[in-house]
């Protein structure tokens, strides 16, 4: 397999016995290699079902799911799963194994030499922001956030081209969740794998995803696009409602002042200054807070590169 896998859902349908509504209704999605794809929607939308079909924890009735053009049905299930990183909300660390043993699970199954496994564990524990000494600890000795970091390291251990994440941060407190979301984005940039990430939280979807698939009740795909495109043009009332009435502000949160065509400045100005890395949403908030008509934008070296006005924000939308 490549470093990142391309995933295709091809008219996938799933019905559970004794239920009228389909769990997943004719889902077709193309997820490019290296994408961070979010499956989001209310419960009953089939997002977890769709995720678990990829590693065949749940069978599908019709259609097909392809990894790099190969049907998941054609790959022996054990082999398939060892090549897909899997992270779940409750983490599911093995309580009788140390952190190191947990992380080394799949490499052990694959028969890696011990020294290679040890080196890989050391590498991953750094990557997910834990201490080397944590490798010797047991899961019961870790906090919830630390456990999910270990869960992530364990999923990445054998360097899989695809990572499936089922509401991985859903059980964490808001501060820990935010920290892990930020690190997840960094991690995705660093390891460049395809990620399919399930959440019911639209904020999380917008913050993390570079593609978002919104599923509604009955397992119907309502819209599949980039966060910006979805916020700019919700496909229907359901999507518009789901992403919220403040979607313009949410869009601005996705953009930074570096994306804005700034106005020229007029000489010695005493206006508040902001970094060019500030999100447009935060800059607008600052405009409102300081009751001024513009802010001075400075680059990394503290040089003023332009002024930011309300109208500049409006021009983005």
């Amino acid at each position, binding site marked *: 397999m490549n470093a990142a896998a391309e995933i295709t859902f091809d008219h996938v349908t799933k019905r559970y016995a004794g239920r009228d509504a389909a769990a997943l209704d004719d889902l077709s999605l193309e997820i490019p290699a290296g994408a961070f794809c979010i499956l989001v929607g209310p419960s009953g939308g089939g997002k977890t079902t769709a995720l678990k079909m990829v590693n065949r924890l749940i069978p599908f009735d019709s259609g097909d799911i392809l990894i790099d053009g190969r049907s998941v049905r054609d790959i022996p299930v054990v082999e398939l799963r060892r090549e897909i990183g899997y992270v779940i909300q409750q983490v599911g660390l*093995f309580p009788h194994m140390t952190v190191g043993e947990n992380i080394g699970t799949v490499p052990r199954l694959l028969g890696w030499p011990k020294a290679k496994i040890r080196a890989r564990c050391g590498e991953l524990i750094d990557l997910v922001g834990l201490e080397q000494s944590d490798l010797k600890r047991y899961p019961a000795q870790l906090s919830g956030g630390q456990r999910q970091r270990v869960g992530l390291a364990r999923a990445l251990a054998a360097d899989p081209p695809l990572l499936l994440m089922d509401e991985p941060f859903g059980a964490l407190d808001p501060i820990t969740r935010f920290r892990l979301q930020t690190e997840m984005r960094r991690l995705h940039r660093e390891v460049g794998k395809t990620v399919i990430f399930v959440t019911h939280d639209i904020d999380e979807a917008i913050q993390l995803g570079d593609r978002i698939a919104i599923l509604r009740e009955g397992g119907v795909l309502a819209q599949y696009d980039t966060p910006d495109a979805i916020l700019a043009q919700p496909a229907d009332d359901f999507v518009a409602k789901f992403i919220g009435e403040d979607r313009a502000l949410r869009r601005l949160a996705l953009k930074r002042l570096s994306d804005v065509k700034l106005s020229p400045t007029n000489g010695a100005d005493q206006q508040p200054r902001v970094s060019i890395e500030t999100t447009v949403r935060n800059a607008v908030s600052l405009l409102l807070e300081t009751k001024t008509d513009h802010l001075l934008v400075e680059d990394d070296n503290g040089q003023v590169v332009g002024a930011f006005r309300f109208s500049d924000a409006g021009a983005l939308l």
Partner: protein
Amino acid sequence: MSVLAAGGPVIPTFGKGSSCVTGDHTFCWDWVRGHWHDTLGPALVQHIELTAIAVAIGFAIAFPLALLAHRFQRLEQPFGIFSALLYTIPSLALFQFLVPFTGLTVTTVEVALVAYTLVILFPNITAGLHSPPEEVLEAARGMGLTRLQVLMRVELPLATPAIIGGLRIAVVSTVAIATIAAFLLPKGLGYPIFLALKEPTPFKTEIYSAGALAVALALSCDAALVGLRRLVVPWASKGVA
């Protein structure tokens, strides 16, 4: 070597021992010392044998049955009900019931003792195998462990505390129940008690010393298993730091 060989069916030196013994005082150390080699020691060894065989065979039966019931969930209830029914039979009655088939033999005693260990071991092992949380099993399957690997690397290790817990109860209760074997056989710590009770005036020292040995045996077995648990289950004793 049996108690009988030491000099007849009556308490060997009752009547010609020290004044403590002839007077049947509460507890006579000199009798215990004098009869360690011909009475108490051998009885203790026999008792350990009776218990060890019963628990070993019971475990050898209960373990595969529990694995089977775990694999084929439908079997669990019938197995469970059968073993629970066994336990409701009073031990003496069970001994008597078996005598026509297996006679006054060690086999009779062991069959009954094994039956009782099954009742304790089977549900404990089954419960242990059920103990891994669903998310742990899902993670295991999701990472590509085969069914056998899930059993060997996840379910059995996580079942170990419950299995050892079951062994503790089985050993302690078998040590206690095995004293009743003396109704059938001149074996075990029950036998000196049995003989002492048969005297016109029951000889207290013999009853107490054999009884105390049975208690001590149960406690030391239990302590040994607690030690074993600590050794093989290091993760359970480490809580949140």
